[in-house]
């Protein structure tokens, strides 16, 4: 029952969490011991001034028990895509499980839909890959990647991809959060610990609904995801815009270099592979 829960703030990591009992216990976020006083005692650990504001009572997804699963997901998606500052301000740092569940569910369902749609255009994709492979002037590394793409477009790889999608998504989400947090630490922009970075990184996966769109869905989703991660870090860590942007773009600048280079090479190869091109 929600009425039985009380809010407390850890004096060590300053994160707010909910608990169903008073007394000595460990912070669920940083693991340090603390004492939660009885409600109404007015002690320093949970004075009314330290309870989170109304906006911090949880995102719709974190309140899905009262809102319902579909309504909670839909409202979270709406806020993430169109009112991200409000969503990230409401995120609670002790709900890592729920946040991971939101990101994995969204990316898995819409990634699977995108793979099924991709089957419909598989013939054209294969023909394009074959035309690109038939060119003599493409770099050898590019040729190897195209061969890998062709080797992995079998029914077996398709089924394996669908089955492993939730696990792969969970791994990518944690890796993304860990790399982003590492850069935030190096740049001195981690004010509230890994749970704050994780909340920003998970809800910023909302644009993965675009994975259902074959072709252009992925690049649009990635760019939107980057923007949302920056907004999320700014809200969850309480950063200035420049600090949030630096923490987000640090790792992605490295990735972007690679992705942009790949995009240029692929674009040139696809252009040459178009029928009618000299």
């Amino acid at each position: 029952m929600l009425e039985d829960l009380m809010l407390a703030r850890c004096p060590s990591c300053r994160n707010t969490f909910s608990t169903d009992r008073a007394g000595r216990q460990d912070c669920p976020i940083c693991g340090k011991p603390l004492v939660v006083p009885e409600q109404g005692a007015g002690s320093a650990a949970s004075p009314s001034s330290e309870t989170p504001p109304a906006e911090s009572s949880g995102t719709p997804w974190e309140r899905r028990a009262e809102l319902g699963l579909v309504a909670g997901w839909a409202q979270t998606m709406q806020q993430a895509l169109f009112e991200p500052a409000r969503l990230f301000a409401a995120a609670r740092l002790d709900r890592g499980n729920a946040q991971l569940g939101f990101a994995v569910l969204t990316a898995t369902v819409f990634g699977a839909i995108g793979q099924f749609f991709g089957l419909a255009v598989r013939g054209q994709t294969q023909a394009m890959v074959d035309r690109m492979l038939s060119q003599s002037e493409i770099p050898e590394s590019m040729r190897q990647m195209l061969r890998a793409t062709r080797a992995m477009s079998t029914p077996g790889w398709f089924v394996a991809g669908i089955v492993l999608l939730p696990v792969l998504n969970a791994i990518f989400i944690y890796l993304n959060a860990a790399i982003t947090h590492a850069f935030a630490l190096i740049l001195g922009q981690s004010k509230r610990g890994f749970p704050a970075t994780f909340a920003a990184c998970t809800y910023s996966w909302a644009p993965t609904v675009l994975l259902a769109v074959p072709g252009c869905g992925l690049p649009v989703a990635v760019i939107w995801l980057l923007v949302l991660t920056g907004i999320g870090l700014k809200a969850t860590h309480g950063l200035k815009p420049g600090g949030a942007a630096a923490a987000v773009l640090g790792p992605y600048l490295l990735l972007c270099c690679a992705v942009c280079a790949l995009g240029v090479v692929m674009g040139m190869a696809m252009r040459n592979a178009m029928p009618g091109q000299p």
Partner: protein
Amino acid sequence: MIARAGPPSVHALGLAGVAAALLGAAAVLPMDLPPLSLFACPFRAATGWPCLACGCTHAFHHFVRGEFVAAFLSSPLGTSVALAAAAHLLWTALRIAGLPYAPRLTMTPRLRWAAAAALAANWAFLAVRA
């Protein structure tokens, strides 16, 4: 430093799971057979220069087989990450078993500069070897 701590948090468990998955994949997946052997760094292919993460896959591959020198020569960064992943996995298992301590890292300005310098040194090492 090592500090008293309760059971591992959700995120500690999640990161331990990811560490186990990465180390397990490096041990099981055949990196020298297609299609995995066909993947190459697109940044290196386009520019001739290694990216910061170049060699990490090989470093993990050698690390899980105990070939630490080969792992380091492939990528010092990848070897460090593999070592950190293994250490975190082991320590989390010990905490689940009841160990009441956990490492606590405080990022001082000196440590932050050292980390940035280590990243730069890693890239310079890869570029020289390339």
